[in-house]
């Protein structure tokens, strides 16, 4: 499971991010308003943490994929790298409504 979790790391981070921002907005909607400033900033902070996690995966996977001697291991690292990269782009994209307004 560890190898699978590593290969899918970036995508898992994206999934956590998506569920997180949706849950924060939904909770905000019950407690006050979904677009309340404090709640938006909470969502933004969460996006920042997820972005850092995705970036970390990109860096580690990039280093590992250059060193991996065997094709199957390299393949896993490359998938992790690509998934992390995609997560960076999509997390940034999904943080835009919070960041620049909607």
């Amino acid at each position: 499971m560890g190898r699978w979790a590593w290969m899918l790391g970036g995508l898992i981070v994206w999934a956590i991010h998506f569920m997180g921002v949706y849950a924060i907005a939904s909770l905000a909607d019950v407690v006050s308003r979904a677009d309340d400033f404090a709640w938006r900033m909470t969502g933004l902070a969460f996006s920042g943490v997820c972005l850092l996690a995705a970036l970390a995966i990109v860096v580690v996977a990039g280093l590992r994929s250059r060193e991996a001697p065997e094709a199957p291991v390299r393949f896993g690292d490359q998938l992790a790298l690509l998934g992390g990269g995609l997560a960076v782009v999509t997390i940034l994209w999904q943080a835009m409504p919070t960041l620049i307004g909607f």
Partner: protein
Amino acid sequence: MKSETGFDPALYDRFPTTEERPEGELETLEALWCRPRGWGWFTAINNNFVGVYYVGAAMLFFVLAGLLAVLMRTQLAVPMNGFLPQETYNQLFTVHGTMMMFLFAVPAVEALGVLLLPQMLGARDLPFPRLSAYAFWAYLIGGLAFFCSLFFGLAPNGGWFMYPPLSSLEFSPGINADFWLLGIGFIEISAIAGAIEIIVGILRNRAPGMTLDKMPIFAWAMLIFACMIIIAFPSIILSTLLLEIERALGWPFFDPLKGGDPLLWQHLFWFFGHPEVYIIFLPAAGAMSTIIPAMARTPLVGYRLVVLAMLATGFISFGVWAHHMFTTGMPTISTSFFSSASMAVSLPAGVQVFAWIATIAAGRMRFNTPGLFAVGGLTIFVMGGLTGVMVAMVPFDWQAHDSYFIVAHLHYVLIGGMVFPMFAAIYYWLPMSSSRPLSERLGKWVFWLMFAGMHLTFLPMHLTGLMGMPRRVYTYLPDRGWEIPNLISTVGAFIFATAVLLWIIDMARNFRPFGPRDSGNVFDGPGLEWLPTGLYSVRSIPIVTSRHPLWDQKDLARNVEAGRYFLPNSATGERETIVTSTLNAEPQYLQRLPKPSGWPLWGAVFTAGLFLLLTVKAYTPSIISGVLALYCILQWCWFLDRPHAGKTADIGAGIRVPTYVSGPSSHGWWAAVITLVVAGMVGALMGFSYVFLWSRSPDQWAPPPELGSMALVLAGYAAAAGLAWASCRALRLERPRSGMIATLLMVVAAALIVGSLGADVQAWIGTGLRPTVHAQGATVYALLAWQAWFAVIVAIMGFYIVLRWLAGHMQADRPTTGDIIALFIVYAATQGTFFTLLVRLFPGV
């Protein structure tokens, strides 16, 4: 290469073997995997038969649903037409959409997997052939019954997504909606069974050496597809269950007057419904990624990127469900999140499209029929994808929602993303299955008529939608500018139907029982499925060293056919296949495969009886049918978990592997865990439903029972889990009374699950909360009812394990049954604990 399991990769060097194979080996294989006769055609379980039945049934439903579409288009050809009455039209569009989505699209790609995967992976069969047979018969019977409801005026009429309140008892008082709710819930069980088979098959039955980076792209697609089914389909099972309970028992999950909310249905339905689009698309994309390189005679450009794109599609598609709900008044920031995810999902789709285009550009594309369908599908899918980005934008969606623009968009996506690739797959792989290619001349007619018919039908619908024509109207007034585009659409539908008719003629010609059957690798495909095969799949299971073994591994076909690789014979005298490790596909053990049997067929017949009789409210016959289904399934299970006398077997070149494995290495354990993931998803979504309904009217919720009873319930669940675990340990001690002690511990654990649930129910009854009065009561009792369902299964398992002990099967050398029952009990205890904590502690004591 570093080993994953302790298997020495140097052993691969022994292959291909050089010595002569003993006489009679092939004859033994042929006798074991013989063609069925008479009644045996119904009880066959081999993928070569079940796969063909499955594809055939899916295409039958495609044709039937297509006929309904032609009838609808005839009605809409001119304004104020009286060809179909309004009620019939409502039933037709509902059944058309339902059949295309539930009875054609998903089963067709699943069927393709069942048919192709064993050969593609170099396995003798998928790991649970009886499960495939059960899934197929359940699907066929359920599907035919669903379609036939049209002839009795009982077909559902609320649209394929059955929104309440329209589908509630008040506005749909007949049993039409029940046919949909129970029928679809039942058919989805079949889809989940198929998905379990596919996941375990791909991860555990690959040919030795087929590491993840050498796995066929179609297998990757099918793996992701099956995982998505496991995550998404529980949602439709739950939603249909809740709506049926509301209709039958009056529990107000969706009734806003009693604290319910119809939007809960939309969330649950679309959490399934939108990933469903990608569930359909991914296997078709996998087929495209296989067919285009074969037709262009060059490897797929960007294999890694395409794998990642498919994985990303699988993930992101679960974050887009609410884009079907932009007009429901959700908070703007939430709609923005879904809007951005809906646009983001076009990234991985785009990667795949560009990989296909690059492959076509890099090679020398052959525009034969499979090639034409692949390129045609690509073109149509891109057009549908572009309008998808348009409707992902909230302001545009507000204008286009529920108009014919959406009808055009979804048909472009589904026909380009699934129907054309499916036809490409049929034309490409049929020579492998029937040993005879389809006609090229007729095939090109089919393609061009279908391509032209498709655009003529659906391109004008963009305009009719933008001109304001709503979907699902049975007629329209003249002088609105809708006449000409509607007439063109109808002409296009008839052209499309002509193409399908020509294809049917070609198929009938292909499956004629006479004439030569020796097409071979007619398209020079690079995958293992193009090796010479019999009903036993490949003669010997090769070592894979390339992603394109038939292109890169010289003499592979000759050596495989000569039995120079793994398992050239039947090592134990029975049907069997090699189980390999998940990542590097290293041989782990030899799996016994079952012989044909009538129990899966009868199990499916009686399971169908249970659901269908429930639909017409024949409760007693329904219960009898359910009991008979249970009996068939227990009979089927009774012969599982029987070790061979020999603990190891030679699988070729002197390499010996175990013939029995238990615990997390065994394929049975994997299937059990995946089944529990399905159950866990239902549980999690029930938790979501509870929290969602609370958020709609938090001030109306009553306090839970006092905390003392909660401690009792939790202690019971904890003890049950502990005893189940202890039972597994006790059985492995190999002492004279181990079997009896293990059985006793398991029975007590099962009793504790039932007892804890009883205590919980008692406590809730004591609060005065009732399920019919308010949504809180409805959801609390729904959670308890779901847990009760598990308690019933646990009780049956307790009874079953006693039977096994009495028959002398509770032994240390066959612990798998005990392990799986323990796993189930631990799950039931965990789920019970989660439910108890949720409803007692949230929103507050």
